[in-house]
């Protein structure tokens, strides 16, 4: 009951921090999509470059977020961005690379070679093939990668509160330092609810972007 009262009293703050939280994740994942999808496509051209890029991306994801934030403080301080919004966005961009590059690469390399043969044989250029065949067929898997990135980084962003990036993580950080259970649980619940609902939203976007001819459930 006390918890509900707390949430009720801090409705506006909760809203504001949710927006902050999503600004970080949204901007970062957007940048990640427009970088990682082209990278994922580009590395399908050469196996060795794919191995290197995927290795680097998976190394990136193994760095704990607290360590990454810590590393960025000395690196970005000369420009005055050691803490706050910028390092948080950069961290999310970096963490999003592996799921999006990896899924784009897998989707494109797994396309039935017969479809490429047919496309080449009918006189499609490389770009036409990408636009008419490869990308539409890769959309479901690319979107799955985006969902993974978003859900994972809603969690990472909660930790970014410690470097002053704002967001729902502040409830958790404050809750811990003040031993305020209500505040702590509010933050934890809000982050979880946010992650689940954004994932559901993206799931329906994924369904909408997928050609009816590719959906697994009978469409008619």
């Amino acid at each position: 009951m006390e918890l509900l009262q707390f949430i009720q009293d801090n409705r506006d703050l909760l809203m504001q921090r949710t927006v902050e939280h999503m600004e970080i994740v949204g901007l970062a994942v957007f940048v990640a999509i427009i970088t990682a999808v082209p990278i994922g496509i580009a590395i399908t051209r050469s196996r060795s470059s794919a191995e290197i890029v995927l290795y680097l991306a998976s190394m990136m994801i193994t760095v704990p977020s607290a360590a990454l934030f810590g590393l960025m403080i000395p690196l970005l301080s000369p420009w005055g961005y050691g803490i706050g919004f910028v390092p948080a966005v950069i961290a999310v961009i970096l963490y999003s690379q592996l799921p999006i590059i990896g899924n784009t690469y897998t989707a494109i390399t797994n396309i039935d070679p017969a479809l490429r043969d047919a496309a080449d044989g009918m006189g499609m250029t490389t770009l036409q093939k990408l636009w008419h065949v490869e990308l539409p067929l890769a959309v479901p898997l690319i979107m799955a990668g985006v969902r993974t990135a978003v859900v994972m980084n809603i969690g990472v962003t909660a930790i970014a509160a410690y470097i002053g990036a704002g967001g729902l993580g502040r409830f958790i950080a404050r809750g811990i330092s003040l031993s305020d259970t209500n505040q702590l649980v509010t933050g934890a619940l809000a982050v979880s609810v946010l992650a689940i609902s954004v994932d559901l939203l993206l799931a329906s976007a994924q369904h909408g972007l997928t050609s009816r001819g590719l959906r697994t459930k009978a469409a008619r």
Partner: protein
Amino acid sequence: MIRLDKLTKTFDTPQGVVVAVDGISLEVPKGEICVLLGPSGCGKTTTLRMINRLVAPTSGKVYVDGRDTDTVDPIELRRSIGYVIQQVGLFPNKTVRDNICIVPDLLGWDRKKSRARAIELLELVGMKPGEFLDRYPRELSGGQQQRVGVLRALAADPPVMLMDEPFGAIDPINREVIQNEFLRMQQSIRKTIVFVSHDLDEAMRMANRIAIFRDGKLEQCATPAQLLATPANEFVQSFLGSDTALKRLRLIKVAQAMRTSPLAVANHEPLHKALAVSRESGLDSVFVVDEHGRLLGVLDARDNIGRSGLAMEYAKSVRATVTTTSDLRSAVALMFTHDVSVLPCVDDTGVMKGWINHQAVGRSLAQAGTTP
């Protein structure tokens, strides 16, 4: 017309240079189907793919309608050549309509024109446009997918088509249906077609000319009848199999093989006239026909020697007839099934046009080899 001039393709592999296609020279006249036939790995598909430059030749030339394909942009070249593959390769994200219209769209056709073309093409193979235009490939049966694959290649009305085992993935019963359907279409569209197959029966059915490949070399290129009658070497002979005579029967029409010397009497003529016909022909069977020449019955001369009356009175019903448009294989099958030594040949209206026996079959087989 398609002409290949000393076309060669070599691949560098870790085991050294492999010659996949070795100096192939071949000509496919306008409107004909040339089947490239041979065991797998003989270079027939590589040869096909060099025609639309999906594989770049190591040396040699390909001419399509007199144009040296080296001088044409490969993208433009491919848009002007129909391409059908065994795996069909319909794009699963596009409807039947959009799949058919791919090349017209690439060529920048007016949308109305290309969509009307899709409807026209579907009707050509008996697929209802209203039912199929908006379906996706996964909502079609294998046979329907393959038909749409062929229509897609025909959409921009290219003069030349390349078909790589187009019916290979279809079950034998439907395969024959689709082959015949395609041959009927070819009667009117008259495309110049290079067709890769490893199935001898398919080649015999589809081809105007068959090119037999082995290890990248062209062993023989000839009409099916020439090939069966005069195989160039032992490899071709063994590839054709031991039943070449039976296969050749399929290629000869009854009308070409039947005898037209008199072997019938009219129903009002006396028996002795029929016996005279029998003596003349040296055959025991004599047919009886009505005033229009329609077959009424058959009598056996040996059973009726010394009798008198009208021939009609001694005639029995005819056990089997064959139409003049059938092939010799079905004629021979009828002769064995009904145990008759002489088979009357009739036209669609039942008028007797001639007759056929074992000797006639044997003679036309002997002739077919010498006159292509």
